[in-house]
């Protein structure tokens, strides 16, 4: 099947084969879609040799044969290239088992396995063209789909409930009525009417269809409840700022262990070394982890004020002055700094101090664009003084350091020049969308 996928990949216009990871990741990973509406802990593991599990955030690509798992508060949508959409709830796990799609003819095949948790799906172009071209396997039983919306829940005892959600007979959408065939133990039950469901128990045929109660229906719900508010979706900017304010405890997952431990084959999910780390936990170790749990479509501004002491040279026996440190983080674009007044990494010694008696308004800083926060180093140290060498070597050794705390950073000011030396640290705070 992988061979089949690869032969079809050339026809996939929307997606390209890419590396999942910079280090050692297999070249042949095939992107089949993207993740959206990610909240809580969500991880993905591709089966390809050399691949490692990764934290999945909105906009990240989903690869063929990815096993996607959610934490206790995790949820997401998996948006496949043919517009098939799986919605996965907390403590769930699924595998895109087969995906072949020719966007020119809208033909292909979709097969998925849901091994635990709550799920919903909406069929896309493949199933629209050929309804029988999509199926979903459960721990017990198979769902044959005929152009529809459906949902299900897999219980701890291995039993499952599967419900049809539409389109119904007589729908006014012009849609062909949907149906699902649920098969287990050699028998098939067909759901024809939205709101009806069947239960599959291990080794037993599916039960006759029955109408879901409101409580049962609610168990298949994956959206948060409506909250007070009167938002207008036309005001996309405002809405974008609201993203992430869902009250979720922000946790991230990161991979620990050596490269050998990170290499897994498709079915080597057991023992997958994911360590869940809270932001309050000092073990949070890099900016990627930081960002993974941070809201998207948002910026954070870190700034602080400090006082430096200076001796010798222009400072005389002793002098002091004020200084500021400032930097911005764009979580989406993975950049620090950016440009414009006060929108880049900056140190500034204030006018009136010994290092700047008058008219000193220049900022000693540097714009830094990073393609990956992990470049900032495992100790989450953002900038060391050498970055300033090109700007003002007298400030070598200055820098900003992320404190592994949700809202603070440390600024370090070092100055050696003109016969003087200065040394200071400050603690800054975060505003905007902060972890």
């Amino acid at each position, binding site marked *: 099947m992988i061979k089949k996928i690869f032969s079809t990949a050339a026809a996939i216009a929307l997606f390209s084969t890419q590396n999942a990871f910079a280090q050692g990741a297999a070249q042949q990973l095939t992107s089949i879609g993207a993740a959206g509406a990610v909240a809580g802990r969500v991880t993905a593991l591709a089966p390809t040799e050399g691949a490692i599990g990764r934290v999945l955030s909105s906009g990240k690509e989903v690869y063929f044969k990815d096993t996607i798992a959610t934490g206790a508060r995790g949820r997401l949508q998996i948006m496949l290239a043919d517009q098939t959409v799986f919605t996965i709830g907390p403590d769930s796990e699924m595998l895109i088992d087969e995906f072949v799609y020719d966007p020119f003819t809208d033909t292909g095949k979709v097969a998925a396995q849901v091994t635990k948790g709550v799920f919903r799906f909406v069929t896309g172009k493949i199933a*629209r063209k050929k309804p029988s071209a999509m199926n979903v396997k459960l721990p017990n039983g198979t769902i044959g789909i005929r152009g529809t919306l459906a949902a299900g829940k897999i219980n701890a005892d291995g039993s499952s409930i599967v419900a049809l*959600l539409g389109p119904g007979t007589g729908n006014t959408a012009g849609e062909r009525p949907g149906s699902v065939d649920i098969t287990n133990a050699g028998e098939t039950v067909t759901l024809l*009417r*939205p709101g009806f469901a069947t239960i599959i128990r291990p080794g037993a045929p599916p039960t006759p269809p029955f109408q879901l109660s409101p409580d049962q*229906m609610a168990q298949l*719900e994956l959206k948060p409840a409506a909250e007070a508010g009167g938002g207008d979706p*036309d005001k996309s900017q405002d*809405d974008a700022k609201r*993203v992430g304010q869902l009250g979720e405890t922000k946790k991230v997952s990161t991979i620990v262990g050596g490269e050998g431990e990170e290499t897994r084959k498709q079915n080597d999910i057991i023992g997958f070394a994911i360590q869940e780390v809270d932001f309050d936990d000092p073990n949070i170790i890099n900016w990627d982890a930081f960002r993974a749990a941070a809201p998207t*479509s948002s910026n954070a501004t870190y700034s602080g004020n400090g006082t430096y002491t200076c001796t010798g040279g222009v400072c005389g026996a002793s002098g002091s002055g004020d200084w500021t440190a400032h930097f911005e983080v764009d979580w989406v674009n993975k950049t620090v700094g950016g440009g414009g007044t006060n929108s880049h990494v900056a140190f500034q010694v204030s006018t009136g101090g010994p290092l700047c008696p008058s008219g000193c308004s220049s900022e000693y800083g540097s714009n830094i664009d990073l393609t990956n926060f992990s470049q900032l180093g495992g100790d989450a140290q953002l900038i060391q003084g050498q970055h300033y060498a090109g700007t003002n070597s007298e400030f070598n050794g200055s820098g900003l350091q992320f404190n592994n705390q949700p809202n603070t950073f440390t600024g370090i000011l070092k100055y050696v020049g003109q016969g003087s030396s200065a040394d200071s640290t400050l603690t800054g705070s975060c505003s905007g969308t902060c972890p």
Partner: protein
Amino acid sequence: MCEYPINSDNQNEQETGVNSISTQFSAFTLSAILCLAGPTAAVAQNLDEEIQRPATATDRQQSALETADRAEAKRVVEGETGVTYADVLKDPDNIGLNYKFAKTQVADGDLKGAAATLERILMIDPALPKIRLFYGIVLYRLGNLHEALRELESIRKLPMDGGLKGEIEAYISRIQKQMRRTNWRGMAGVGFQFDDNRNASPSTGKKLFLDTPLTLTTGLRRSDFSALFLLGAGMEHDLGLQGGHKLFANLTYYRSEQTLVDSLDLQVYNWDFGTKLNGGRWGEWSVALPFDHMRLSEETYLRTYGLRVDWNKRLNNKLGLYTQVQGSKHDYVKTADVPTARERTGNHFHIDWGAQYAPAPAHQLTGGLGYTRQQASRDYFAYDRWKIEGKHAWLLGKGRFLLSGVTVQVDGYDEKEAAISAKVRHDETVRLASTFGYPMGNLWSPLKNVLWTFTYEYYHANSNIMNYAYTNNKVATMFTYRWDR
């Protein structure tokens, strides 16, 4: 048609087949002369067409109402295009982008996809009443009534502007009605019609009698206005099974009251009851027992009762197939104006096949073929009819629509009508019709349940018997009010 009463009571002769030209001749001569000169000359020349008028009018109005529903449903997404799935994949949590994409999906007829997109928005930010409303409407249109209701009820108490709140309450009410096991609905229409040849007078101004063209002195082309009335009530009862099978009953009353040609005043009572069955992949079936009672000029003229089976199947979101088969008994009753009506009594059978294709959400094309077999106690009233028709429904935006259609029929009668011609009648007819619909709620919101329609129809009949070759033009307008509970 001019009717000849002489044979109407001669049942023995009819049954034994003793029906020679010679024995009929003197009777036809007398009756034809009486017909051409007498008061019945005002009766339509083509009664076969006349009995179709009520059905044509009510079917057209029913199509208009169904199209109005689709036009109204489309209104919510008008004006949004251009966002692609690829755009959304690049920025899947951009709420504004997703919102536009959902509207584009609905505009493109992809409501399932829109449901997923709106769900995504609400996963990102659940506190958006406008999105909840949109999501609820999409689920409602997909037939997922329980979830649609839950979505809308979850936001009905949130603070929001009055217009949005009113819309949410209206949809909650509509969904709750649909979720009832038994639903009732009704409609009332009033309007008028102008017909420039109400009595279907021959285009030549002449009529054949014994193959001799006679210039008409009476029965000349008469234009006329008529008042139209349409009343309807219907009931559906959900059997509560997962197939969604239902029982239904409908009652319709149609009345056309002529200003001048009172002999063509029409009234039709129609009722039918039956069951709708969901056959899953085998399509949707409806089996009904229809009954019609037609009155012509205040007298019972025709009773029809039979069995009708409908089958529909959507192959995909764009293409659907349909078939209708009906067998019925047409039982004519002698009236003062049409004393020979009983000669038309006989069995009726028709079958229609067709397909509906929606190349775009705003357009729907229908193409169909039909065959009808009408039997009669006199063979010159019995015929075979082949029909081909095409229709186009165009949703113009803001709830407006334009329905256009063309129907071509070929009728071949079984036997010559000797008093008129030695030739067996053969007709070819063309009907062109167009109906514009406009929801009156656009002008004044309290009229939201009122639909205004304006119809133009051109009808042309060619026949090898000049008596039946004619044209007429009709314009009709109607205001229709609907309610359901």
